[in-house]
């Protein structure tokens, strides 16, 4: 267990660079379009922004495979777009249109797709997705699907009870689950230091004996490389991983909130570190993007979003009577529920299922509760003095993320980084 500081350096292909850039641009353009719709009173409820946080949604979700599952939070429009959700669906959700994925029954990013895109819909109560995505991860492993699940949480949401219940359960089950903690420094109007007495929220992971990363959330390459490594490790059965992405919420909690509680200097400092501008500078410097290439993307986005917006605006409101019904699944004609087995069913049915534990609990001897392994007994009264936490190397006091002008390669802060302590 520990906070990992070094990621494997990984070369991105030109196409990957351009994809990351395109999706961040798309994320921002979709949200800019929605601000216009909001100002025209075409958005029914609230509008939440991920301005300045696009690198996190895009970079993490881009690290997943098609078969993997996500559950977005309110500021993860970018993840939905990477997963393949068309912008029109996002527009229509906000506009409560009948052609939206929830047909007007819910708004914002509150929609999902079980069959094709593998997206679980969030609810407004924070943290609930953590146990749910743990369950998807365990279920996928049970069915032999080799999937990884991912969800996001904010600095604010990391104080909910379900965050801790879920992460602890994921850890005990070694679930193939990646949790991305977007520390944008503000939970509505409450600064992170008034919520959590920790410099690094990645430290939450220590309590569950799982690994964590700390990254610069405004550096999309760092985000992608880290997420990629985390996903690979989760898929390989190494258990859940927490990634803390340091960033800043540039707008208010939602459109109605001018966020006057945020110091001007703080905003200015982070505005100078805009993830898209920084990446554009990098791509230009590396000759991966030139003026013509950029123009091409500008035009593509303009055309796409004009069409998507038009479609959304032309969609009708749901008929009033659609409020009724649909509360229950009425059977096969409603949903044919079938598990997708990718392992031999014989492995989980008697007599084979009755043989042995899939993994064991070390330290509990060969008793029944240990899973039947022949392990030494941990008597529970010895290790405190013998083994200081963190392998005896306390993390440097004051070690922290330095966020200055230029984007750095994900250079997480903490000094102690042992992977040895893992179970």
């Amino acid at each position, binding site marked *: 267990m520990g906070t990992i500081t070094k990621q494997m350096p990984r070369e991105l292909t030109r196409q990957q660079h351009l994809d990351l850039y395109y999706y961040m641009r798309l994320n921002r353009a979709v949200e800019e379009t929605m601000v216009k719709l909001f100002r025209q009173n075409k958005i029914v409820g609230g509008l939440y922004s991920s301005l300045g946080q696009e690198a996190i949604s895009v970079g993490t979700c881009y690290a997943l495979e098609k078969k993997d599952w996500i559950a977005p939070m309110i500021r993860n429009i970018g993840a939905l777009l990477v997963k393949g959700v068309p912008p029109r669906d996002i527009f229509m959700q906000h506009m409560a249109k009948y052609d939206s994925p929830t047909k007007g029954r819910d708004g914002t990013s509150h929609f999902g797709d079980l069959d094709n895109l593998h997206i679980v819909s969030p609810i407004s109560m924070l943290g*609930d997705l953590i146990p749910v995505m743990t369950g998807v991860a365990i279920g996928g492993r049970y069915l032999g699907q080799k999937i990884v699940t991912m969800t996001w949480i904010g600095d604010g949401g990391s104080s909910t009870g379900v965050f801790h219940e*879920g992460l602890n359960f994921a850890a005990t089950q070694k679930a193939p689950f990646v949790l991305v903690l977007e520390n944008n420094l503000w939970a509505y109007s409450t600064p992170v230091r008034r919520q959590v007495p920790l410099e690094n929220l990645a430290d939450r992971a220590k309590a569950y004996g799982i690994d964590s990363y700390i990254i610069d959330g405004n550096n999309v390459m760092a985000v992608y490389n880290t997420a990629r490594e985390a996903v690979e490790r989760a898929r390989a059965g190494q258990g859940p991983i927490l990634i803390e992405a340091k960033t800043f919420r540039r707008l208010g909690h939602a459109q109605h909130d001018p966020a006057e509680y945020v110091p001007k200097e703080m905003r200015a400092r982070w505005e100078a570190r805009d993830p898209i501008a920084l990446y554009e500078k990098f791509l230009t410097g590396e000759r991966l993007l030139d003026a013509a290439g950029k123009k091409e993307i500008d035009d593509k986005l303009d055309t796409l979003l004009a069409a998507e917006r038009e479609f959304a605006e032309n969609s009708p409101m749901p008929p009033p009577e659609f409020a009724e019904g649909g509360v229950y699944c009425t059977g096969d004609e409603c949903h044919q529920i079938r598990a997708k087995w990718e392992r031999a069913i014989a492995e989980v049915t008697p007599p084979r299922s009755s043989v042995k534990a899939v993994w064991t609990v070390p330290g509990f001897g060969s008793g029944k509760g240990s*899973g039947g392994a022949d392990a030494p007994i941990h008597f529970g009264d010895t290790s405190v003095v013998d083994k200081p936490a963190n392998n005896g190397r306390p993390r440097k006091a004051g070690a922290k993320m330095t966020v200055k002008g230029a984007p750095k390669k994900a250079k997480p802060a903490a000094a102690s980084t042992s992977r040895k302590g893992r179970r």
Partner: protein
Amino acid sequence: MAGANGAPTNGSAAGGKEITFLEAIRQAMFEEMERDPTVLLMGEDVGVYGGAFKTSEGLLERFGWERVIDTPISESAIIGAACGMSYLGLRPICEMQFIDFIVCAFNQITNFVAKGHYLWNAPAPMVIRGPSGGGVHGGPFHSANPEMYFVHTPGLKVIYPSTPYDAKGLLKAAVRDNNPVLFFEHKFLYRRIKGDVPTEDYTIPIGRAVVRREGKHLTILSYAAMMHTSLEAADALAKEGIETEVIDLRTLLPLDEETIVNSVKKTNKCLVVHEDTKTGGIAGEIAALLCEKAFRDLDGPVLRMTSLDTPVPYAPTLEACFLPNAKKVFTVAKALARY
């Protein structure tokens, strides 16, 4: 937490004729897991220990560690994870060690699990079950009847059976249902009530009440442990010449309105008996239903015999005062019959 109720059963596996209520639960889970590899069991101490009441005894040995999962004490994580599993087409059964603890997962159940189908077309086939009810001196946190919190939640189904036959058939139906189903098991009945159960596979449809005793002078509607109390009272009433129709609701959501209304149209009087506390109990809902659908058929007020509007007290003397009993039911029913 197991207390005196945690003693193991000696019952062998399936095949018996007369079995306990508890064995009916165990057989239902065992047979469903045998029949369908998508059925899993999760909960606190359900595996190695076989459950605090031994309702899952032998399941770990038979189905293994991937299908019988001992969890941390995290009710929200249990329910949340089960919901996630259900999205993959699995059919998890979650055990709440005592149903009192279900409220620790209230948000997961009422906001996440229950609303998914309506909001985003996501069915969540899962069962949440556990021992409920009082009369065993479990005190205020091991005796609750929290069913009505959930009856008020569209998207859930709520079952509360009273016999081994119903318990087994309804639990199997719950596992096969495509919706989240809450299944309450009255722990007073676990080892006290025995009944014949067929050896072959069967289910009982969710949402159907059953007439336990026919009568013409008044209708008593009840469920779970109070069903037996009501039948006892009906025996005493018969000796006074009052023929009571006793109906076992079995499912509280959806409620079998047809059976209820038809009976009251016949007897013209109705008493609802439940162990849940009075205010906000199902009796009030039934009274409103009868006002809407059978007002002109009523020859008297719809009455309620329920527990007191207090937490469940611990001392046997206090709990006896808190709970309805056959004598109390008899007295109220007799007065109603003569109304």
